[in-house]
């Protein structure tokens, strides 16, 4: 949920996964909070976590997999150092979001859901960030940006890349 750069994610750890599951075990319907925390800690939901969750929560693996795969937020692999989400909702469309979306894909040479070859940026589409009076909107690592045209998008990308180098 709160995006961070790749460097802050830790590698797969069964112990840590079990610890997270146990901390949420007393909650009603703990699966979603657990999946969010796994992604916050590891950067994505490792397929190995499915087995651990199924056993600990007494679900079938199919049930857990079904939930993980239903929600777009849950990744199956590590994202780029930064995640840029471009809004394609109607309000943003009215201010040129489709042009911006095309520009973003072209500029980064990736499609939505993909990560640039250098691992710097994962590009995603999103339908509404709640910034509809300051369209078009994008979100960079959890930070909302408003009135983003193609030029400002390039500036954001440049800033993100220079931070990744540091």
């Amino acid at each position: 949920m709160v995006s961070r750069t790749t460097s802050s994610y830790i590698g797969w750890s069964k112990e840590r996964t079990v610890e997270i599951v146990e901390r949420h075990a007393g909650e009603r319907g703990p699966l979603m909070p657990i999946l969010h925390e796994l992604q916050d800690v590891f950067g994505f939901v490792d397929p190995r976590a499915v087995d651990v969750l199924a056993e600990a929560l007494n679900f079938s693996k199919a049930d857990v997999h079904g939930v993980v795969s239903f929600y777009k937020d849950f990744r199956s692999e590590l994202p780029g150092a930064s995640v840029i989400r471009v809004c394609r909702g109607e309000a943003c469309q009215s201010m040129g979001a489709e042009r911006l979306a095309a520009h973003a894909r072209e500029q980064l040479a990736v499609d939505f859901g993909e990560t640039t070859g250098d691992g710097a940026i994962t590009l995603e589409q999103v339908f509404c960030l709640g910034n509809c009076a300051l369209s078009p909107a994008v979100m960079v690592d959890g930070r909302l940006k408003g009135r983003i045209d193609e030029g400002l998008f390039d500036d954001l990308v440049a800033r993100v890349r220079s931070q990744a180098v540091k």
Partner: protein
Amino acid sequence: MSAPVVFVPLDSAARSVGADEVAEAIVGEAAARGHEVQLVRNGSRGMFWLEPLVEVATRAGRVAYGPVGAGDVGELLDAGMLDGDPNRLWLGATEEIAHLKRQTRFTFARVGVIDPVSVADYEANGGLAGLRRALEMSPQEIVTEVTKSGLRGRGGAGFPTGIKWQTVLDAPSDLKFIACNADEGDSGTFADRMLMEGDPFSLVEGMAIAGLAVGASEGYIYVRSEYPDAIATMAAAIDIAYLNGWIGPSVLGTGPAFDLHLRVGAGAYICGEETAMLESLEGRRGMIRAKPPLPAVAGLFGRPTVVNNVLSLATVPPILVQGAEAFSQLGVGRSRGTQVFQLAGNISHGGILETAFGITLGELVEQIGGGTATGLPVRAVQVGGPLGAYLPTSRFDLPMDYEAFAAVGAMVGHGGVVVFDGTVDLSRQARFAMEFCAEESCGKCTPCRLGSVRGVEVIDRIIAGVEREANLELLEDLCETMVDASLCAMGGLTPFPVRSALQYFPEDFEATNAVPK
């Protein structure tokens, strides 16, 4: 004399255009000039064309400046901003700004005024008075008061809140829930986000009152993951509410227990549908449930559950404080009270406007919104989110009223209005509506899952001029099937933007590369 108080919004939209940088510049530039300032990060007043909007507390009240860039700060300070002196970005007394003055701030009374997580600010501005009053009332008295107010669900469906609460109150169960739907996924709507970021305690208070009213001991707020700032502010507010004993083992130390949990969605639009949200809260795929049973009878974990939108719940405390009559006397027809309208998209003065139902669509878009941001004439507006109708300017006389909109095949929904200029192609927008439905359908029912995919196909053929008449007929059939046979509003309302686009903007569906029959 204490340091002057300067307000810079912490609202994520204000931050999206540089409010943090402005706040930083004010602290730095003031210090460089030997001035002390007390910086308060408030919510947004909702005038986004003026963000970042800076306010200074003066003896004569708050004075506003905007839109302020970080680079303007030095100049403003030198021109006496800390004393409220005029300069080129001076807007005068905040309360006197025409856009604010014409509003009736009922639900949004504190948004933009207070520090969102300050207990002192909250209580000094009427906070907790509704909960205190509720503690003196019987559950039935609370429900009756809410019913009398005429409050209807602000999430879009407009179901009377009091009647929903009555059903839950009357349902026998030793465990009941309050579930707040904060999965505000409709493009063009951002009032829930602003409230959660600008006055989160009002939602906590509204949920605690709902708990007292129906005998529920637990509440869940389901916020969409696309709102990280709202999530953070809401989480902080809940912690503070616990620490101060507002909720927990005993509401305000004298009432029954009420626990409140914050849950985060994961990018599924369908989870804004109440039963899909309940499934998600239970830890399952966000598949909708067939109704009946109603959530009020068998909702979260099979228990009687009040499912209400953020604004519905946050409107309850002021109703209890000011009385049902104060709310119900506002509005028109069966649409009582105020609505927090949201002006979005290609609009000059975008933001929120809380006012009584009955204001016309044209007044909102032209007079208050000031027309398009691009300066071109308005061609179409979409009201009520991705499932709402596209309307032409000839419909600008429509009053914002649930029934008046329903009568013309449109909906007020959540009160979001998205404006388009003449560059919009309504056949593309109709196609997008079907595409969006195909993308976001939970897949449970066929009309929605397959109808939407078929819809994209058929619209493509119409635009391409392939068997136009036959395909237009097919599209109408498809729309009818989706409306009549879908299990929920996703498939059931997607035809609204499609049909309205066809009805009002048929010229956009003329074939560009017509293939002769």
